[in-house]
C-alpha cells in the first residue's frame, strides 16, 4: 500500500474513552469521561506535544490511540488504515510501527528478565530472524543510543536507578524502529542533564528515521523544545492547540495562560505573576455544564455556562475552545 505524502501518519477523530466506575458497597455508580471529543493529526516526522492538568486524559489518549485500550467512540487512522476496530490479531503487524514509552519505568520492566532479554523480546515477538550475536549487537546499540554502558545488558532492572530504568524503557521502544512513538512522561523521571541528552536523542531519531511522536509531558519547557505543535487538555478535551511558538507567545485559552504561569523557574526574576488556580479539576464523573474550566476561570462570564465551547480558529493552525475573543492573555515568551 502506498501512502500519499499529504496523509497524516495518525488521524484521530472525535475520540472518546469512558470508564464505568463505582463500588458495589456504596452503590454509587457513574461514568468517568476520561477523554471526550478529541481530534488531532500527527504528520510523518512531526511531534505533537500534549500537556494538561493531571487527570485530564493525556495517558488515556495515548493508550487508546495505540489500541491498548478500546475507544468508546471515534475513529483512529494510522498509516492510512482505520485501526479503530481491528482485532487483536489484525493489530499485530500494525503494532510494531507504533510504540509506547511508559510513564512508569518500575511497573513496565519485568524484574525477572535481564536487560538483554527485555530488549530482545520485541525482536522475537515480531519474528525478526537474526543470529544471537546480531541480536546482542542490536541490544548494545540501543543501550548506547540511550546512554547506557553495553554491560548493562547483563543486569536486571532492580540494579538500576529510576532514570536508568526509564532509559531502558526508551531503548526497548526503539528496538523495532517504529514510525510513531507515544512518549508518556518518558523524560519526566530523568535528571535534567540526562533529560537533555534523551531529548536531543529523540530529535536525532526523528530526523534520521522520520519518527513521529505524541509527546506527553507536564514540563512545558521540555514540550516546547521538542514539539512542532502543542495540544492542551483540560478534563478530557483539547482546549487549545497551536504551533509551538504561537502557543508560547500568545496563548488564547485562559487555562493555557494559567498553566504557563505555574511553571517553576530557577530564576525568581523570570518567574511570571503566578495565577494560582482556585479549586480543583472538576470531577470527570459529573462535568459542569458549558465550559469545564469556568469555575476556576478568572475571565468567566455567565454565557460560559451555556454550551461546551467548540474548538475555533484563533490564528494559523491555532484553535481554542473559549467563547471570549476579547481577552489579552499573558504569554511566557515575546514574539521575536
Amino acid at each position, binding site marked *: 500500500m502506498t501512502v500519499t505524502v499529504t496523509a497524516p501518519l495518525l488521524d484521530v477523530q472525535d475520540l472518546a474513552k469512558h470508564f464505568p466506575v463505582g463500588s458495589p458497597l456504596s452503590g454509587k455508580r457513574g461514568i468517568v469521561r476520561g477523554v471526550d471529543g478529541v481530534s488531532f493529526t500527527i504528520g510523518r516526522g512531526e511531534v505533537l506535544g500534549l500537556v494538561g492538568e493531571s487527570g485530564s486524559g493525556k495517558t488515556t489518549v495515548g493508550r487508546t490511540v495505540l489500541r491498548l485500550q478500546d475507544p468508546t467512540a471515534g475513529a483512529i487512522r494510522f498509516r492510512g488504515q482505520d485501526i479503530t476496530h481491528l482485532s487483536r490479531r489484525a493489530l499485530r503487524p500494525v503494532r510494531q510501527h507504533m510504540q509506547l514509552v511508559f510513564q512508569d519505568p518500575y511497573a513496565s520492566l519485568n524484574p525477572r528478565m535481564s536487560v538483554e532479554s527485555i530488549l530482545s523480546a520485541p525482536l522475537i515477538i515480531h519474528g525478526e530472524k537474526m543470529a544471537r550475536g546480531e541480536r546482542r549487537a542490536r541490544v548494545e546499540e540501543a543501550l548506547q543510543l540511550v546512554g547506557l554502558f553495553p554491560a548493562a545488558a547483563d543486569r536486571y532492572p532492580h540494579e538500576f*536507578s529510576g532514570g536508568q530504568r526509564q532509559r531502558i524503557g526508551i531503548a526497548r521502544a526503539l528496538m523495532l524502529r517504529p514510525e510513531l512513538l507515544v512518549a508518556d512522561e518518558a523524560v519526566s523521571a530523568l535528571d535534567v542533564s540526562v533529560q537533555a541528552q534523551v531529548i536531543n536523542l529523540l530529535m536525532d531519531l526523528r530526523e534520521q528515521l522520520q519518527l513521529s511522536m505524541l509527546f506527553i509531558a507536564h514540563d512545558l519547557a521540555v514540550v516546547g523544545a521538542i514539539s512542532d505543535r502543542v495540544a492542551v487538555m483540560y478534563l478530557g478535551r483539547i482546549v487549545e492547540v497551536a504551533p509551538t511558538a504561537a502557543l508560547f507567545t500568545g496563548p488564547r485559552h485562559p487555562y493555557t495562560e494559567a498553566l504557563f504561569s505555574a511553571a517553576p523557574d530557577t530564576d525568581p526574576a523570570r518567574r511570571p505573576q503566578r495565577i494560582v488556580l482556585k479549586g480543583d479539576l472538576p470531577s470527570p464523573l459529573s462535568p459542569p455544564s458549558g465550559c469545564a474550566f469556568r469555575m476556576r476561570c478568572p475571565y468567566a462570564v455567565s454565557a460560559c455556562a451555556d454550551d461546551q465551547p467548540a474548538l475555533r480558529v484563533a490564528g494559523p493552525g491555532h484553535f481554542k475552545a473559549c467563547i471570549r475573543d476579547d481577552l489579552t492573555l499573558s504569554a511566557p515568551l515575546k514574539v521575536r
Partner: protein
Amino acid sequence: MSALLDVEDLAVRFRSDSGEVTALEGVSFSVAAGETLAIVGESSSGKSVSALAIMRLLPPAPACRVTGRIRFQGRDGPISLLDLPERAMVAVRGGEIAMIFQEPMTSLNPVHMIGRQIAEAVLAHEGGGKTAALRRAIELLDLVGIPDAARRAESYPHQLSGGMRQRAMIAMALASRPKLLIADEPTTALDVTVQAQILDLLRRLQAETGLAIIFITHNLGVVAEIADRTLVMYSGQVVEEAPTASLLAAPLMPYTRGLLNSVPRLEAALRPGQRLPAIAGNVPDPRHRPAACTFQPRCDWAQPDICGVTRPGMERVAEAHLVRCARWREIAV
C-alpha cells in the same frame, strides 16, 4: 541549633552475582526542624538510596551493607537509626519520619480502596474508631487537592491518574503527622499546576507544624521554589552543598554548573530543532568508577595531573557552602 537529622559518613554497598556496587560513599549532611533540604543530582547518583538508608528500607545484609551514623531527634530524645531494633524502627517509620516515593504504585496497595488505605494509616497512628479514621482520610485527600474526595476515597489506585495517585500517597504520609518528611520525586509525575499546589501545600504544612522536609528532585525550578539548602550528588557522593540561592547563583562544582546549564528553558520553544545543552558522556559504571574525581571524564575543567590523581575532599568555600572539586578556587574567579 541542633539538627533534627544528622547523617555522618554514610556508605551503602550492594552485593550481587556480578560483584559489589558502592552506591554511596562518605555522605554527610544534616537537616534542622522546619527546614527543607533538597537533594538533586544525576540519575543513579544515590539520592533514593540515601533516603532508603535513613528509612532503613534497603535490603538486609549480606545483599546490602550500610555503614556510618544517622542520628534523629525523636520525641523521646536522640536515637541512632542504624542501631535501632527493627521493631522500634517500624514505629519511627509509621510515625515521626514519613516517606513518599517516586512511584506511587509501589506504596499503594492495588487491591484496596485508597480511602481505606489512608484510614488504616490513621488508625495505626492515632487509634480511634474506623469511622473517624475514614473521615480523617477523606479530609487528608481533600487537603492534597483530590476533587470529590468522599467519592474518590472509594477508588482503587489503578482508577486514578498518575497525579492523583501521587496526591493520595502524600495524604497517606501525612496521616501520622510526621516531624520529618522524605519526599522522593513527589511532584515528578504531576503537571505544573498541581505541582504548584503541592509545593504550596508542603510550605503551608511546614509553616503550621514545623515539619522538616528532605525533597529529592530533578527539577531545579522546584528546588528554587522550595528548598532552603541544596545538596548536589554525583556518582554516590555529595559534590556540593549550599544555601539554595547561592548554589543557583554561583555554583562551583563543574557538575552543578553543567546541571544548571541543562535546565530546559521556555525559550527553546522559539528555536525548533535546536539541540539542548547537555553534559557530554555518561555517569561512570559504579563498578568502574574513576579512582580520583568521579566527574573527571566529563569535566571541561579537568586537569589530569590534578583531577586524575586523588579524590577531592569536601572543602568549605563559605559559611554554609561546601564543594568537592580540586579546582574550585580557579572556577570561583
